[in-house]
């Protein structure tokens, strides 16, 4: 295990982005009233073609909105340089950018941001805070323009999944800090492709609902990246069963 690595403090303080997690199908467990609404909707869907067609149309519209947000901005590269193009993409999504030796640039609650970064042609982007942004696999084309990125935060991004993680390897030379906390679609299979990022010093994999066995995954990721400090679950979490809980465990039927 490496010595504890002091974070460069490149991650911006938390901004309350309540854009909510996109509900494209049952990733979040509904409770109470929501359950009844859902049942009613399902009943109507199963009995009426119109309701089914309308729901299908609304679903398609949501998906095309996400596609529109992740359209390609690489054409900006010739005019303004790769760093400004990538930064523009992040800012349009609602994330925050930090250029080297400059302050954090983030959009306000109306989505407006200062246009000063268009002048920073040669200044590389050091850190990106894309928490709660709707970045997906296609949008990573734009993010990968930022060749010298050191810190990337993809916390609670609803569309970042295992496929996206397999695209992060071009940032191997510079990326030192990565945070995937709270991403609903990231599982241990995607974490396996992070082994390319040999310069990574801090990795945050806490609160990943799709990971089947958080304690074991943490151990395996730590073995995979020996120079990296992995922040996630306490690896002894699964072992903390007290003696009074043991009998209950053995009584429950083991699924075949």
């Amino acid at each position, binding site marked *: 295990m490496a010595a504890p690595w002091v974070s460069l403090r490149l991650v911006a303080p938390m901004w309350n982005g309540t854009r909510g997690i996109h509900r*494209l*199908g*049952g*990733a979040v467990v509904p409770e109470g009233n929501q359950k009844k609404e859902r049942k009613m909707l*399902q009943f109507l*869907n*199963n009995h009426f073609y119109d309701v*089914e067609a309308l*729901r*299908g149309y609304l*679903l*398609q519209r949501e*998906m095309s909105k996400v596609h529109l947000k992740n359209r390609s901005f690489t054409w900006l590269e010739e005019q303004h340089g790769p760093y400004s193009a990538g930064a523009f993409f992040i800012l349009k999504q609602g994330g925050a950018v930090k250029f080297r030796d400059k302050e954090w640039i983030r959009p306000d609650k109306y989505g407006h941001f200062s246009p000063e970064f268009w002048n920073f042609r040669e200044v590389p982007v050091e850190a990106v805070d894309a928490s709660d942004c709707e970045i997906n*696999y296609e949008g990573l084309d734009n993010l990968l323009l930022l060749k010298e990125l050191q810190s990337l935060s993809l916390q609670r991004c609803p569309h970042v999944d*295992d*496929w996206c*993680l*397999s*695209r992060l*390897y071009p940032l191997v030379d510079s990326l030192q800090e990565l945070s995937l906390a709270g991403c609903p679609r990231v*599982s*241990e*299979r*995607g*974490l*396996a*492709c992070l*082994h*390319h990022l040999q310069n990574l010093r801090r990795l945050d994999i806490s609160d990943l609902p799709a990971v*089947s*066995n958080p304690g*074991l*995954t943490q151990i*395996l*990721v730590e*073995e*995979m990246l020996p120079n990296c400090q992995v922040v996630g679950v306490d690896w002894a979490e699964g072992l903390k069963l007290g003696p009074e809980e043991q009998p209950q465990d053995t009584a429950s039927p083991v699924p075949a």
Partner: protein
Amino acid sequence: VAHTGRTVGRLGEGDWDGKVSEIKKKIKSILPGTPCDVLPDTSHLPPEHSDVVIVGGGVLGLSVAYWLKQLENRRGGMRVLVVERDHTYSQASTGLSVGGICQQFSLPENIQLSLFSASFLRNINEYLAVTNAPPLDLQFNPSGYLLLASEKDAAAMESNVKVQKQEGAKVCLMSPDQLRNKFPWINTEGVALASYGMENEGWFDPWCLLHGLRQKLTSMGVFFCQGEVTRFVTSSQRMMTTDDEMVTLKSIHEVHVKMDHSLEYQPVECAIVINAAGAWSAQIAALAGIGKGPPGTLQGTKLPVEPRKRYVYVWHCPQGPGLETPLVADTSGAYFRREGLGSNYLGGRSPAEEEEPDPANLEVDHDFFQEKVWPHLALRVPAFETLKVQTAWAGYYDYNTFDQNGVVGPHPLVVNMYFATGFSGHGLQQAPGVGRAVAEMILEGSFQTIDLSPFLFNRFYLGEKTHENNIM
């Protein structure tokens, strides 16, 4: 009180019971009658007419059905029927597959098919979206494929990688030193070069894909039937070619589908038949008269697809390679990959031509692992010297004995039979692309997106092999 009453005609007196029974009769004659059980129940039979009949309900057949319904010009314009003999899929190659997808082929068409399939799987919840159903989780592991080459294969691997990079696959070459650096558990003795897929390669759960396709097809209105195709009724037409030769063109207009465990069959009138029967495609082709003729002629060219049995073994090795392990394919042909988080691995090896096991059943030969697979694995990964086999299974390859590549497209003589079979172990990873190509062939008349002309049936008669160097 039962007294025989006579109707007297005066109110309040007489025949009360008789009156009640008369009233009952009147009410019965007005209300709808009792259920009529004269007609027998035919819900298990396929419909009597269908535009397209797809023989074989595995991933290829379902993929063709999906793209036919997706690309048809008018919604509900085509009636598609999928006939599957075994609804448990107990011997189907799809379910028994290792589930890998990779772009490291030598033919550009194979690379493009695989790339499209990767993007299909990536966006599977947009392609196969069904309202009310939860999103599909393919359990995709994007860990990539690592192919190792010895001295004599190194040059071929280099040229293959060049072609792959040209087509857009993200593959990189590694020297033995780089290999040892990245994967310290590998023994690089005998390895001259390695190619490693960085993106769009890995393995996934084929059952999930099958289930997702079935769900989407049911919602799109495709008919499913469990039965066996026993007969094709064809009509022939004699025509003259430009060289003044007589040629007989056949066209199938009826398919007889026989039900399980009975002699009952249903003749289905159809316009197009698609042969996606996997390992048993040759039997279906023979039913249509393909191959019945003097050898060496087009009529006598059989479909060269036969079932080949392949074993897959699962073992446990606590000191084995870690989470980053790709699917490693050794110089000897042995391959392995991780399975889950618990130090389990699965793998196998293709036997040489002379040691091909008998494909009559799916029994597993454990000695094969001991003698032919384990030594190579232990040589390549020293940690595998201590391993314990947990389980094993066997599955069929629909093996194309001619050139180990798929057969796609129409037959030149039986004009309305289209093939989508013979992929020799990479059918699952090319299914979405092939399905789209066959649908385009049927609807537009030619391949629109990926040109699969090298995979047409004609090559068996003309003797032109489209050989693929990299198969496992």
